[in-house]
């Protein structure tokens, strides 16, 4: 019972998500079913003590859509690239373990970035250093330091997108300041 109370407003996205899952599983989005789902979702969120997910309290849909477009584009091109590497390179492949230091220190954003990176073929999160927000990625087909630098740039760009979508205000301000400096 020592868990700190989370205001309903930051909990709300999780409850809504659980209600949607409930409706999808029953294939019934009628009012009665959703209302029952909402009761269950409220009970689940309040009585099962998982570590609370610390959402940042902002979510920008306008940035989400281009991010999804970019994600799908990379997904398709990278899948094709891994296919091509499997066919042509095979055992002559050269890889690298690259460390990428992220800007944000929010667990949520580091996890989201790691997930987005892992989902795109050709990169795999091996290790996370939480104290410095460093991701260690295993990347396919890295032959030179330039390739590694390109990967670092790409990961930090992905993180920048995620900060714009759902980063905290501090992270967003830091990102903006960085853009001005450049």
């Amino acid at each position, binding site marked *: 019972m020592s868990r700190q109370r989370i205001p309903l407003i930051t909990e709300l996205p999780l409850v809504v998500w659980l209600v949607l899952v409930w409706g999808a599983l029953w294939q019934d989005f009628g009012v009665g079913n959703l209302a029952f789902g909402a009761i269950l979702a409220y009970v689940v969120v309040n009585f099962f003590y998982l570590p609370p997910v610390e959402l940042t309290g902002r979510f920008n849909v306008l940035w989400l859509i281009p991010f999804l477009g970019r994600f799908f584009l990379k997904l*398709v091109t*990278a899948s094709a690239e891994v296919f091509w*590497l*499997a066919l042509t390179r*095979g055992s002559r492949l050269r890889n690298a373990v690259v460390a990428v230091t992220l800007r944000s220190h929010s667990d949520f954003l580091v996890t989201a970035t790691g997930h987005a990176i892992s989902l795109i073929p050709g990169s795999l999160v091996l290790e996370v250093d939480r104290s410095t927000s460093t991701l260690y990625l295993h990347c396919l087909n890295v032959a030179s330091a330039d390739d*590694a630098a390109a990967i670092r740039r790409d990961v930090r760009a992905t993180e920048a997108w995620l900060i714009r979508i759902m980063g905290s205000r501090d992270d967003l301000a830091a990102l903006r300041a960085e853009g001005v400096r450049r």
Partner: protein
Amino acid sequence: MATDVVVAVLMIGGALMSLAAGIGLARFPDLLSRMHAATKPQVLGLLLFLLALAVENGTWLLVPVLVLCWVFQLLTSPVSAHMVGRAGYRTRHLRRDLLTLDELDDVVARAAAGEAEAHESPQPDPAAGTPAIGGPVPVDPAVVDPAAPRAPGGTGRRARRDRA
């Protein structure tokens, strides 16, 4: 007719992704590169198969379930890939000769050295590779305590990056 063509294209695309995974598994040289082949096409391949199912079925009621399938796949597949990759790296199930750059090696080595020193007597062990200057070797606090703040990019890592 038109839906049949779309469904056929989507399913062939999905099957090609599975084929890519199979070829990658057979041809890539070590565990970690095979992880890429085994876990990655499932994201796009599954998406194509689910899209084919949605187009073929034609009812909107099925779409939320299919979206849910894909979202749960997106949420879980990187976690399993990470766990296997991490375990593989730590148990040295990888071929280091295939790596052009390894920025994790130093960090793991330093952390392991720190742990060993913390467990043993304060007298440094010359066999562990630490120079015996007399007295306990000052240990980087960040290595022992993962919560302690560390300078961005450890010195060892930075040196290695410059060399590469």
